[in-house]
């Protein structure tokens, strides 16, 4: 069983020396990265448990931190080996800055729109309202009245 053998070897790698870097430190670096094993859908490197990529990579992060590399150096090293898609979120620079700015811009635009709408609504005079009402599509008078009476009779959607 070659796969079992591989699994064992990989695990033994993982078993090796006690690490100085704490789990929290490894986790905080791994959270910035994604697993690129190809079987999962680029799950967070911090949580993926695939033995052919995430587990050994986490160990690698641990030993790199032990050798005195900084967080950023470890992340850069990972990106140098696997490309920019290894980053869990787009870097906030250059074109990718747009990823971060757009949602906030959309929210600002939205609230401006809501404000304009409210102010417009408040400022309407009664003539406009009456005009709009009379322009409504006609419908059966009888049905309308009955519905209104039913509405008063029963306050279900108060």
């Amino acid at each position, binding site marked *: 069983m070659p*796969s079992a053998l591989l*699994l064992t070897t*990989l*695990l*033994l790698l993982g*078993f090796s020396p006690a690490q100085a870097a704490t*789990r929290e430190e490894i986790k905080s670096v791994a*959270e910035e990265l*994604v697993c690129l094993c190809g*079987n*999962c*859908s*680029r*799950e*967070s490197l911090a*949580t993926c*448990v*695939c*033995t052919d990529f995430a*587990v050994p990579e*986490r160990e690698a992060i641990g030993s790199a931190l032990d050798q005195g590399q900084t967080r950023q150096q470890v992340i850069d090293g990972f990106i140098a080996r696997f490309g*920019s*898609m290894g*980053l*869990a*979120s*787009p870097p906030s620079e250059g*074109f*990718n800055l*747009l*990823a*971060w700015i*757009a*949602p906030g811009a*959309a*929210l600002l635009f*939205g609230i401006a*729109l*809501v404000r304009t*709408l*409210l102010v417009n*609504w*408040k400022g*309407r005079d009664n003539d406009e*309202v009456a*005009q709009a009402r009379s*322009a*409504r599509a*006609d*419908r059966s008078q*009888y*049905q309308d009245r*009955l*519905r209104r009476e*039913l509405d008063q009779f*029963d*306050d*279900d*959607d*108060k």
Partner: protein
Amino acid sequence: MIDIGYFALCLALLASGYGVIASAVGARRGQLGLVRSGENAVIATCALLTMAVVALWQALIFHDFQVEYVAENSNRSMPLFYLVTALWGGQNGSLLFWGWILSLYSASVVALYRQRYRELMPYVVATLAFTSFFFCIVHLFAADPFQQLSFTPPDGRGLNPILQHPVMAIHPPLLYLGMVGMVVPFAFAIAALLSGKLDTTWLRASRRWTLIPWTFLGFGLLLGGKWAYVELGWGGYWAWDPVENSSLMPWLVATAFLHSIMIQERKGMLKVWNLALAILTYELCIFGTFMTRSGIISSVHAFAQSNIGPFFATFLIFSLVFSFGLLWLRLPLLKADNRLESFASRETAFLLNNWVLLGMLFAVFWGTVFPLVSEAFTGEQITVGAPFFNQVNIPIGLVLLLLTGAGPLFAWRRTSNESLRKNFTTPVTAGLIFVGILFALGLRDLYALLSFGLCAFVTIALGTEFHHGTRARMRSTSENYPMALYRLCAKSRRRYGGYLTHLALVLLFVGFTGKAFTQEFEFVLEKGTSRQVGNYQLSFESLAFAEASNHSTTAAALGLHRDGEFLGTLLPERRYYPAFDQGTTEVSIYSTLREDFYVILVGSAADHSAKFKVYINPLINFVWLGSIVFVLGALWAMWPTPRDRRLARVDRASAVGLLVPRKRPHHA
């Protein structure tokens, strides 16, 4: 049987195409016969697609491996249960399933409204039939589920192992029922636009037809989270995967729609907006199906990739242009009937609710498609993963939570300063006190403090609403408290059912916030040894290997103790499915309302030592609790009331002589 299935699909294509033409022409010319014939075509389409689905089920259950889909997605060793669910386990089958559910919805609408909404119905039928027509084209020309192989393999490949889980039997159907159902409010919106009957009639018909799929979709999403939690083995339930996002997006818009229709019903405002939301919800469902099924963005869910992309893209663009073009043409008829009396009103709260939900929609949409945008512009492949979505959506989510409690405290039209003060004092105080207590207990995470504080605020705000209503009722009747509470909620189902779903959101947020306190451990244990993990003691008792017919299993037995008390035996497994060259983790969970102790067997070595990963997930069960309350609240809100029955009678009585729309002059 397979030939019958294929033939049924061909006939369904014709029937749905005929349905479109008959309904449209019948409506234009005012010919009842043609309109009825179009409705019958929808029923026939449903019957034919049912036949096709039965044919595929028959092929799956009786192992007709000459059918490519059967050979790809099932095998002889699968139990009957998974043979049945294999219908939606693969690409072509799940599209057929989609089309079938669509036809079931369409047939139900037709059957229920033979005498109601007559001015809208021909156009509703035409829209529904047109969507069916499109799906039949996909079934026949892009994703034929009955495609036959030139030979008959002795056995099939089987169902993807990660899909072999009981939750997977219900999660996809629920999502489909949710995504597909949004076609009904869309059809009513289009019918209102086409017929020019732009009053609230279409909304009245659409409200329940939105609530039903909205409930399915919401529950389906949460159930999908549950599945991911127990099956995917990474200790979480929501990964902001493109496919999860693509079902969340229509749900967000539908939620906005369910709120904003109330403004139109009561005040005759937001007419354009409501039509736009109904259209957008539907387009997002089509977009979601397109994304999931064409695999344009990498995802766990994109199990198969095929050539359906161009079909969906064309349909999406066509329906977008058509719907919004139609809306634009009708703008002159869509002026608001009222004016806003005060900024401090329920109307404003609903507008803000729509703003937040649509803002969240944009953030999710943008994050989901950004890899494509970025690659198109820079040529560089990037990932937009959970950290991005969390950073962007957590603040938006907290504002949403705030509105969940604050909205109901505003009265319609205007709320006086005095009543604002009265309504807000208790809930705000409660929220602040709760934050103070948590801070004193040592909680320092800003978002967690905000979230828990808001949860307390919303709970008290809504609790007060229920309480005041009940007391008012007790004063006017002789009922005791529980009876008055029940009667109150039964009298205004929409209102109190809605509040119940707001409380469900609180429970969900409690669960989500628990995520901030997750502890995780990864370690190696020798057989026979034990170790302290958080507040628990974990002892590794034995390791076993087994060969099943389609997979091999490694299982560990772990004893779990806390403070010397034995809590139970945990049995995490690791499985390997040779047919798929895929390993899966079967996690083992010790669950209490306070927290879950979640163990994954990462791997094992020949010397009987094994590597484990443990998550201690506090408060996670509030998420599942919240999903149950969500469904109960939604059911409460959608349950038919005596008023609905009276309205239906009125509609039927007044529909006599109006079974077909008369030609009417257009009002400009």
